[in-house]
Every structure is written in C-alpha cells, then in structure tokens.
C-alpha cells in the first residue's frame, strides 16, 4: 500500500516534469528566464480580462511580423511603478503601453512618455475624431495615439419596459422618470430591480463624476457641495431604495442583467455588451438620462504610447500602425467590443447585433440636445485614486449609511479640496476651465 503510493507519487512527479518539457517545447520564447528575447512587450491596463487578453493574442496581434508578448493587467498602480522603475534604470522592458487617457496623463506629467506628435501626424490617414485627438494632447503635444473608445450607457431587460411611466421615451429619459420607472417595477414585482455597479471592481464612481454630478449641477468640483448636489444625492438615495441591495457586490452589470437579478442598469458599454450579445432580443440599451442641467456623460479613451526610456522606438511605432489599421480596428470592435476612436462608418463590415445596438445608443446619447461631455479628470497625477475615494466615501456615508447629506458633503468637500491642492490641479470640464488650483464649491 505504502510502496505503491510512493510509486504513484513518483509517477506524478514524472508527469509534472513531462508537462514542464512540453511547456518549454510549446513556447520557448515565453519561458521564464528568456526575457532578453527580441519579442516586443506590449503592456496594457485595458483588455486585461482573460477573455480579452486571449482575443488580443490570437486575433488582434495576428499578422504582425514580429513576436509580441501581450501583458494585460488592470492595475494602473503596477503600470506606474513599472514605468517609473524602467525610467530610473534607463532602459525600458516595455515597448508599447496601452492605457486610459487619465493614466497617460499621470505618466506624461512625470515626463515618462515619448512625444508622440510625429506618430499621430504619420497616422493622419486613420481619421481620428477631433474630440479624441484633443484629449490625447497633453501640455501642447500628443502624449498618446488614440486607440479604443467607449462610454457608459444604460440597459434594461425587455420585461421592464411595460412599467415605463406614461409619456416617457426610453431613448430620452429624465432622471425623475428613471426613478418613477424603477419604483413602478418594485411596486409591481415586489423586488428591487434597479442596479448600479457599486462593487469592488464597479465603476460607480464614474456614474457620480461623469453622469449624476454634471446632469444635476452642471459641474463636478466647483458644485460639489452645492444645493443642486444635495438634490442629486437625495435622488440617488431614493433610487437606491429601488436597487437590488446586492449592487454592493456587482462589478459588471451584464451578469445580473442576464440572470434577472437586475432589470435596469447603468454601466460601461464594454461591461454590458455580453448581455446584449447573448440575448439581443431580451435586453435593450438606451442613453443615460437627462438631468436639470443636461445629459452629462463621460467619454472613455484608451491610447497607445511609448515610454521615453525605449531606445529604439521604430518597432513600437510599427506595432501602433498595426493596431490602428482599419482591419485590426474592426477585429477589436468585433472581439472585445471597444469602439474605435474614428467614425464607425469607416469600419469595414457590419456590426454584431449587441455591438450595433450599443453603437446606436452611443450616437444617440452624444447627439442628445444638452449633452455635456465631461473631460476625464486630468492633472491629478498620483492623486487620482484619492480623488475617486472622495466620491465613493460620500456615496457610502450618504446612501449606504444614511448620513446627513449636507454634513457629509461639507466633510468630503474639505477632503476634495485637499486632493486638488496637493495635486495643484486646475478645473476641467464641465467645471469652468481656468487657471490656478480648482476651488471646491
């Protein structure tokens, strides 16, 4: 008995060793210790989920003449640390960075990125949208090349539509109508069926910064503790009463929408697309609602850039050329559902149903009269995490813990001013853009 088990153990180890060898044979270039190989490293904070990374490796990078190692990791902190360490060492292990606009802003502020102006000019034929090119320009020069874009929209299960309040148009809801709607659903079904991504990986903070605040107050920082803001928080508290309390565990809203735990939800388009693709007939997307000060929305822009420490940028530029190529852009849209930073009409081939629906919704949202695009928070540098904390803390205190709105806002306004002061950040849209440190109102 004992002996045979020992043999089994030995067999197991043998199998492990074979697996080891097989692993080497399969992919020697990727084996640990072979980092000096001439494969380019493409490090991205976007497209980092298992599924997305797989699509990048197999489809989006396919056809590029050189070998590329794609490393996807959604932690911006890790990317900053890595790029900073490379800069200190004077040579970069990363050939190309893929990141969000705000993340690049942090790196650009520290002078860690190559000036990408020449590359953007070379790629003039790509037809990047003016708005995105403006976002990519930081301190008078291009910090990155626009690559992928998205925004946040809403989605609902079809059975929720029968409870829409009289006279409400799904494609042009107001915040009040949205609340009436989710209340009606709760009344009829006995269950709270609204949903917000308030979980650990959820993007609720962007709802507050880019949607609720601009729509109710016309600003973010300058109106943080205003009377309009208090009204917004009261609205949020009311609609939270109709939200599934499991919302505090939701990261991506596509799952609760598919399972039916949530009937009406707001989230990042990419985090809803799975629901729209799986059940295009049962789930509909629609624009974010309009508030007293218009329809606030937040565009998302991801870009490509090269660390300053890269000695020979030519292969990296080739890779950018490859990734922004119309055929590749089309693949990106189809496989990971990120939109291109160009006009969709220029993309060859039709769109899959879910993605097509989202594209329509996005176009309708941007075209709504009174649409207010927030620029992404810029100039916060390493303080962007602490900036977000102010909003999530306010949400927890007011909405989850039922704190006094004015009192909480006064406390958090002081914290917010502290963040802006230590980052020396000027105001950004929709606040009036100006010189000097932004003042919290």
């Amino acid at each position: 008995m004992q002996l045979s088990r020992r043999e089994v153990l030995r067999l197991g180890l043998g199998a492990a060793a074979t697996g080891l060898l097989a692993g080497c044979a399969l992919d020697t270039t990727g084996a640990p210790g072979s980092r000096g190989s001439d494969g380019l490293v493409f490090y991205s904070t976007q497209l980092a989920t298992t599924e997305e990374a797989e699509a990048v490796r197999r489809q989006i990078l396919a056809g590029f003449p050189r070998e590329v190692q794609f490393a996807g990791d959604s932690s911006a902190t890790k990317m900053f640390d890595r790029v900073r360490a490379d800069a200190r060492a004077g040579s970069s292990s990363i050939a190309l960075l893929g990141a969000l606009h705000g993340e690049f802003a942090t790196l650009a502020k520290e002078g860690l990125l190559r000036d990408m102006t020449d590359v953007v000019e070379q790629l003039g034929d790509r037809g990047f949208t003016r708005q995105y090119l403006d976002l990519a320009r930081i301190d008078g020069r291009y910090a990155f090349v626009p690559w992928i874009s998205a925004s946040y929209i809403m989605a609902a299960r079809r059975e929720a539509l029968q409870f829409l309040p009289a006279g409400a148009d799904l494609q042009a809801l107001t915040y009040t109508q949205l609340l009436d709607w989710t209340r009606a659903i709760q009344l009829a079904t006995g269950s709270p069926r609204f949903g917000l991504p308030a979980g650990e990986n959820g993007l609720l903070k962007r709802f507050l910064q880019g949607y609720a605040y601009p729509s109710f107050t016309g600003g973010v920082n300058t109106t943080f503790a205003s009377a309009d803001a208090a009204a917004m928080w009261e609205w949020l508290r009311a609609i939270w009463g109709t939200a599934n309390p499991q919302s505090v565990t939701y990261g991506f809203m596509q799952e609760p929408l598919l399972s039916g735990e949530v009937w009406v939800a707001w989230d990042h388009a990419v985090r809803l697309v799975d629901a729209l693709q799986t059940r295009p007939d049962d789930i509909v997307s629609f624009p974010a609602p309009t508030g007293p000060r218009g329809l606030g929305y937040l565009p998302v822009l991801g870009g490509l850039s090269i660390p300053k420490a890269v000695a020979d940028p030519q292969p990296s530029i080739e890779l950018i050329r490859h990734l922004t190529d119309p055929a590749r852009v089309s693949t990106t849209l189809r496989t990971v559902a990120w939109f291109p930073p160009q006009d969709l009409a220029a993309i060859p081939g039709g769109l899959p149903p879910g993605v097509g629906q989202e594209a329509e919704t996005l176009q309708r949202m941007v075209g709504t009269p009174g649409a207010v695009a927030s620029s992404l928070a810029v100039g916060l540098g390493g303080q962007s995490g602490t900036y977000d904390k102010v909003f999530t803390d306010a949400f927890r205190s007011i909405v989850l813990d039922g704190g006094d709105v004015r009192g909480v806002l006064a406390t958090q306004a002081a914290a917010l001013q502290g963040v802006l002061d230590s980052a020396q950040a000027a105001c950004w849209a929709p606040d009036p853009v100006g010189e000097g440190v932004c003042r919290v109102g």
Partner: protein
Amino acid sequence: MAEAVTEAPVVAAERRGGPQRWLPYLLLAPSVAYLLIFFASPMIQAFGLAFTSTTGEWGLGSIRAMLGDDRFWPAVWTTVILLVVLLPLQFALAMAMSMVITSRLRGSGLWLYVFLLPLGVSELGAGILWYSIFVEQGWLNTVLQSLGLIDRPVIWLDYREPWRVIGTIVVAEAWRSTSLIVIILVGGLRAIPRDYLEAADVFHAGPWQRMRHVVLPMMRPTIRTALIVRTVLAFEVFATVIALGGTGTDVLATQANRAYTEYQDAHLASAYGLVILLVSLVAVGIILVALPTRKERGE
C-alpha cells in the same frame, strides 16, 4: 509515521551544556536572516510609509485619515466579530472531522481526502464559489425553494442586514480554512496514548466525558497552536469578504487592500497594515494568557 511529542527530548550531550551550546542558534540563523530580509525590512518600510503623508512629510496624516474614516470602527468591529463567531464553529467542525479520521471507521483514507480538499481552494476561488451559492439567483435559494421552504428567492447578501452577511462570510471561511486545523488536530489526537483512552473505557466514561476529561486536556497544546495559527491568518482574509460583502461590509484587511488597489495610497494601506498587526498580536496574547500550558515535567 512521526509520532507527535509535545516536548523536546534532549540529547544527553546538550544537557551538560557542552561545547555545542551555540549550535541551536546557528541552526536558527538562516531562517531568522531570511525573515529579517523578507519580513522585517519591508515591514519597517511599511511603518515608514504609515507615518508619512502622500506628499512625503513625516507625521500622523495617514493615521489620522484612517481613524477619521467613517468605516474604520465598523471595520474593526466586524473583524473582531467575524473572528469570535468563526473560531469556535470552525474548531467544533475540525474536531468532528479529526475524530472521523482517527476513529476506526472504514474508508478513513477517503474521509481524510475529502476533508482536506478545501486546502486546494484559494481565497479568491472560495469567494467565487460561495458567491454563486448565496447570490439571489444562486444555489441556496434553488435548494430552499425546491424544498418548499421559501416561496421566492431571498436576498442573502443584503448589506443592510449585517448579521446575514457576516453569517455567509463565516460559512464560507469555515468551509475553506478548516482543513488546516484538521491537519494540526489529527496529529494531536494521534499523540494521545491509547492507555488513557482505554482507561476511560474501563471506567465506563461516556463519549462526552471522555472528550472532556481525557481528549481535550491532552490536546491543549495542539489546540493552542491551531488557535494561534488560525487567528493570525483570519485577520488577513479579504477576498471572501469582498466577494460576499462587496463594498457594504468591511474588515480591516479589505480596507488595507482597497487603500492600495483602489486609492493607490500605499501610506493608508500601511497604516491599516499596522493596525492589523497590532490587533493580531493582541489576539495572540489573549490566547496565550487564556490557555496557559502547565509547566512541563522534568524541566
């Protein structure tokens, strides 16, 4: 197999305090050096981070920010409550499992294997697993509803019912981390000399009396070790808490983790790390005082 002995047998030569008195220290040296490099130095650095602010100046800014957070004290209490509820439950469970393994039931190898399976499940994996059980449209509601115990799905993970959420976390943690205690307890049970148990049988002691007067006293040192190991590890748990409690329920470790990953504030994260260290040490101290071992024979 290695029979467990609770006291170190002393090789004759050492008793006389021979020339090899320094040998044990030499043998400990590599591990001490290693832990100094990989624990002590980053720990000291973390202390430094905790007492500097994001702008780099020394002070209590990060500590004050931590204490000023509305969620700080709730997180402390949840951490403590979780531990106090979890430990007894887990020990009862581990004791039962160990009894099954050491009893003369058939298939003890199989029972052993099954009870050790959760050793192979990481915290993150356990979080995914138990979330799918407790979620509104999950397994628990499916089972309860098919048994006719409820007529519609219950929302178990409702942050407004803290006890319910803590209950789910306790269940998940008891499932995941009991195996480690089983390993330690089985060793202790095996070390109890047969004579003692047979003596108990001779005096017609019932199972409960046997447990209370023979097994538990003999297992005291083992239980103490298991308690300390589990307590120290329990303060670090955050993935199951995040999976089940989301942003609605906090413990110190989730706050530490959030400070680093979400707020990108290593100073705040280190401040929380400091508090966790303090609380664990206090808890270990309490265990040491509450469960003193008798002075050992012959020393």
